[in-house]
């Protein structure tokens, strides 16, 4: 604890705090724009931070990383387009809450619970770095496969009314992931000789197209009814939760944060998986589960907290093992090495002061995010007051920019447009988008790791059942697929009988 406090004292200099502030503001800008990711922002800042002292440079990078994840929720909530992949789950309820007219409340929830989740993640980094890292190290191909299958089983949960349509959407997403080089054998599949398809279709342009372009095209047909903002923003809508309402979300949010820290610690997973898994779990077990997906306050709180809590897990793995938890932490490892620090167990032994600085920066970054977020609540919520054509053009413009900026490929823009048309058709015909995104994220992980696990086990499929973590995840998948819905129906029948 004394070491952490010494970290705080080290960062309270004008240069470090101003670097942190600049990073936070840049992160808000990048995170809120669909298509511009935290990874991109961190990478773009590396050349600038090279000239800064280590504390100041890391302050800027950590500031942009943390605030980009927070800000991704703003566009997810306001325009149903995740600013970063980590905010995908926030679209399930955030946008619906805004459509009901609770704009300021939704933005406030994003800020409050993002800070709460982020601080929780930072606390877990302090107290449980090595145990979490040890847990993450136990994940081999069989465990990754089981985790991916567990996540894929959630396609049913996010399907809404029609499970058949949800599964069709999901399997179409899985079909897209088979295009390109096979991950294990490097055999070209369905590329038709195109170098672009051979390199696999990027997930990000599809996400931007489905959510951003697709939403705007849908609004061309059915303009969004202007919410009665004046009436709701008057005395009736308070635009925040009181202590009692916050307290009511404690169990769901705490559970989401704990699960997300562990998921974030697993290399290759991030806030996107953490958010979806947390949302699904809480939907099944919460008393308010029926409201999830319809603009539930608790559901939005869960997703906002979870995708920020996962950062703590990712940083834990990065610092204690030197293994990146996600793409931005991979770049942060590069930044640390640039300053002469090698992440891993030796970092804790030989450079405890630097670890303390990083931990302190995470806490102070969330303080800055809280200031920007709460001060900006009115600004963010008033963005929707602009004329609809201007907002639509802005989303179109940023979507195209974001799709291009990823790989500097104009073909990604074409993919984005096609995905937008598909997204529009899905919206018009009752097909959910959630399963597509889940499939795009988890499909490659499932395929690659199932085959790898079988190769390592020389074809013995029992490997998935003999490894404890894999077995637990498979059982959890089966339980959530079959047992929980049956139990829920039994509970409903009992309640109906009581009423009669």
């Amino acid at each position: 604890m004394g070491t952490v406090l010494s970290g705080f004292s080290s960062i309270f200099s004008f240069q470090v705090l101003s670097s942190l502030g600049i990073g936070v503001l840049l992160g808000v800008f990048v995170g809120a724009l669909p298509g511009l990711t935290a990874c991109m922002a961190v990478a773009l800042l590396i050349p600038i931070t090279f000239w800064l002292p280590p504390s100041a440079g890391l302050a800027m990078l950590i500031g942009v990383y943390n605030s980009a994840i927070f800000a991704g929720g703003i566009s997810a909530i306001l325009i149903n387009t995740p600013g970063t992949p980590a905010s995908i789950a926030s679209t399930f309820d955030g946008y619906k809450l805004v459509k009901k007219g609770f704009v300021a409340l939704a933005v406030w929830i994003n800020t409050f619970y993002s800070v709460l989740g982020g601080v929780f993640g930072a606390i877990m980094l302090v107290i449980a770095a090595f145990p979490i890292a040890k847990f993450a190290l136990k994940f081999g191909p069989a465990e990754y496969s089981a985790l991916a299958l567990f996540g894929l089983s959630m396609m049913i949960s996010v399907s809404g009314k029609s499970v058949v349509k949800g599964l069709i959407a999901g399997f179409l997403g899985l079909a897209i992931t088979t295009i390109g080089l096979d991950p294990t054998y490097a055999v070209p599949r369905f590329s038709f000789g195109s170098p672009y398809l051979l390199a696999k279709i990027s997930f990000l342009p599809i996400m931007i197209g489905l959510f951003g372009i697709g939403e705007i095209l849908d609004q061309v047909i059915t303009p969004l009814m202007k919410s009665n903002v004046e009436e709701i923003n008057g005395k009736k809508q308070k635009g925040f939760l009181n202590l009692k309402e916050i307290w009511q979300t404690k169990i769901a949010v705490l559970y989401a944060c704990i699960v997300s820290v562990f998921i974030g610690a697993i290399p290759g997973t991030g806030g996107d998986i953490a958010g979806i898994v947390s949302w699904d779990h809480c939907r099944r077990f919460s008393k308010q589960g029926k409201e999830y997906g319809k603009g539930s306050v608790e559901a939005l709180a869960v997703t906002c907290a979870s995708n920020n809590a996962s950062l703590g897990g990712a940083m834990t793995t990065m610092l204690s093992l030197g293994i990146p938890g996600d793409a931005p932490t991979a770049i942060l490892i590069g930044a640390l090495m640039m300053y002469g620090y090698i992440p891993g167990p030796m970092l804790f032994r030989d450079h405890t002061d630097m670890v303390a600085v990083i931990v302190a920066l995470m806490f102070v970054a969330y303080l800055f995010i809280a200031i920007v977020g709460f001060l900006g609540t009115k600004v963010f919520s008033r963005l929707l007051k602009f004329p609809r054509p201007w907002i639509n053009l802005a989303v179109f413009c940023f979507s195209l920019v974001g799709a291009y900026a990823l790989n500097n490929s104009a073909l990604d823009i074409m993919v984005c447009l096609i995905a937008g048309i598909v997204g529009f058709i899905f919206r018009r015909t009752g097909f959910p988008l959630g399963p597509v995104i889940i499939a795009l994220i988890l499909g490659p992980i499932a395929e690659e790791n199932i085959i790898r696990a079988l190769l390592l086990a020389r074809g013995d499929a029992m490997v998935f059942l003999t490894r404890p973590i894999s077995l637990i995840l498979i059982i959890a998948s089966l339980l959530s697929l079959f047992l929980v819905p049956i139990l829920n129906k039994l509970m409903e029948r009992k309640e109906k009988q009581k009423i009669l």
Partner: protein
Amino acid sequence: MINVDLIISIVVFLLGILLYYGSTTLPAGFSPGVPGPDFFPRVIAFCLIVLAILLFIRWLRKKEIYLEKGFFKTKAFKNLLFIILFTTIYVVAWIYEAGAFLINSFIYFSIIIYLFGEKRIFQIISISAGFSIFTFYFFTRILHILLE
């Protein structure tokens, strides 16, 4: 009334068949008991075919209406088609580096914002110019990408 579910079930069924056919051109597994590159496409194809049949059965039981007759003749749908058309032209011009990026973007954004419903000339020109300059600046100065 347009039978959307019927059309989609047929399309998905055909996609499943195509995917399955495509997977037959891929090599099977190289080690005993280990799936090859053809395995996952086949599983997905099989699932798509089954799901298409289930959707068809669902359509037989309850014929839900998603698109009313005359939908394709509405002004909104025509606007939608124009948006897609002009966006395609813009992207193709970008790919083939036809014209100047700034001018292309200004023309494109002007048309798009008009189709979105903005009719005031001054606002169309100023906002389109603003977005064009922002896009150009972002690509050339921030991402260091050369544009015409």
